[in-house]
């Protein structure tokens, strides 16, 4: 059973459609007790960093996500929330806001929105991207991670649920963890 974390900032519907199409059982919830019974967790997301973090705090999910040992997949904003810090949605000039700090890095604005299909070298496949912010790893100025794998955590900047065949295969691979 896959638990989709519903924190009010996500393209949950399309993700749920994709999982249904793949025949993967899933539940949508923001209740810790329900999510605890799932074997896999997915943190989707569309929206700003600030809104996302505030919503996670509101549902008391921050500590839960930091400490979970289950396979966890962060998609788009979900990936960015896993970073160390970010400033999207905050008034300009204010300090960074802390993220979940699972994969590290800082969420920064791109010079222009990155929308469209790009090849993800690590996965040898094309995926659909649509974002205006990225996770920046300190010391690498012009490189943006599209896909990060760290222990039980997978984080992807692209939208597997919108990437046709390659995306569905990606979700299948995650479920096989």
């Amino acid at each position, binding site marked *: 059973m896959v638990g989709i974390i519903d924190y009010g900032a996500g393209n949950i519907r399309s993700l749920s459609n994709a999982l249904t199409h793949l025949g993967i059982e899933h539940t949508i919830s923001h209740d810790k007790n329900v999510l605890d019974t799932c074997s896999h967790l997915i943190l989707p997301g569309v929206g700003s960093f600030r809104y996302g973090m505030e919503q996670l705090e509101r549902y008391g999910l921050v500590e839960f996500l930091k400490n979970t040992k289950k396979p966890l997949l962060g998609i788009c904003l979900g990936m960015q929330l896993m970073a160390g810090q970010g400033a999207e949605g905050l008034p*300009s*000039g*204010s*300090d960074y806001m802390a993220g979940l700090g699972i994969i590290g890095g800082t969420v920064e604005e*791109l010079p222009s929105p*990155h929308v*469209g299909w790009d090849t993800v070298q690590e996965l040898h496949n094309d995926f659909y991207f*649509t974002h205006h912010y990225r996770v920046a790893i300190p010391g690498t100025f012009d490189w943006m991670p*599209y896909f990060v794998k760290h222990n039980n955590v997978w984080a992807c900047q692209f939208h597997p649920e919108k990437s046709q065949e390659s*995306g569905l295969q990606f979700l299948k691979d995650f479920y096989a963890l």
Partner: protein
Amino acid sequence: MLCKIRIIPVLTVSDGKLVKTIQFQNPRNLNSPMAAVRLFNSRNVDEMVILFIDGKIDFELFDEISRECFMPLAVGGGIKTMEDVDRLFSLGADKVVIRTHTELCKPIAEKYGEQAVVQSLDIPRMYDFQPFVGEYLITDTRLDGMMTGYNIVIPRSDVPIIVNGGAGKPEHFLEAYNAGASALAASSIWFYTETTPTMVKQYLHEHGGTRPVTNNNMKPKLGSGARFAALKKKLAKRSGVTNPGALAAAIGRKKYGKKKFAALGTKGRKQSSQDYAKSKKMKMKAY
């Protein structure tokens, strides 16, 4: 930054039926929208635009479409309030196309991000490019449904531009691609000819679009002014920085030396004034 070129089918829906207009007039009934959607989904299309041209959003139809599609969906036509937008996103839309109610661009960008807002502009009548927009969908009303080729006068912009209206052969896509479009939208060609999006992509690939496609490379060209602007923007967000321009200049002088930095600055200013003049000229031409 550039991505791979996207080929986007546009489905125009009126009163629950799939229709096709010529120069925005005389809607002609085609098959059912769901049949077309299934076809495009099986052909692994990059993205799809659905426009309710009668100005009434058919939420039920869109719900059905989003259940069967695993591709990005942009919806437009008849979006009047933020409630419409919220409902479309909850049904699985990825972008909304705004044409008349441009005052919605800002609230949508704040809630869902700029990449979720597409502004539709009908040239030659409309030219009011809005801020807080992730993409511009530019349709030439004179060429809609004519299948005689795109209007390849494409305004310069940092924001990706989708051109629409006029595609009738794979060659037309190549022309617009070389002219600088980020994405190519079309509709008649899929319904009235045997061309498929895959064939167009294959054609573009074989005839090697002259524009480079870069990956993971976000550094703008040195001396274009874009890097300086990006740094300035970044510094402005830091607390305690009162004059981001001066700080950025100081960093630049330290990095490249005083002399080289001054030369780069001159080059950048020259470039941007040229770009500006060019864009002005292009706009005039388009009229």
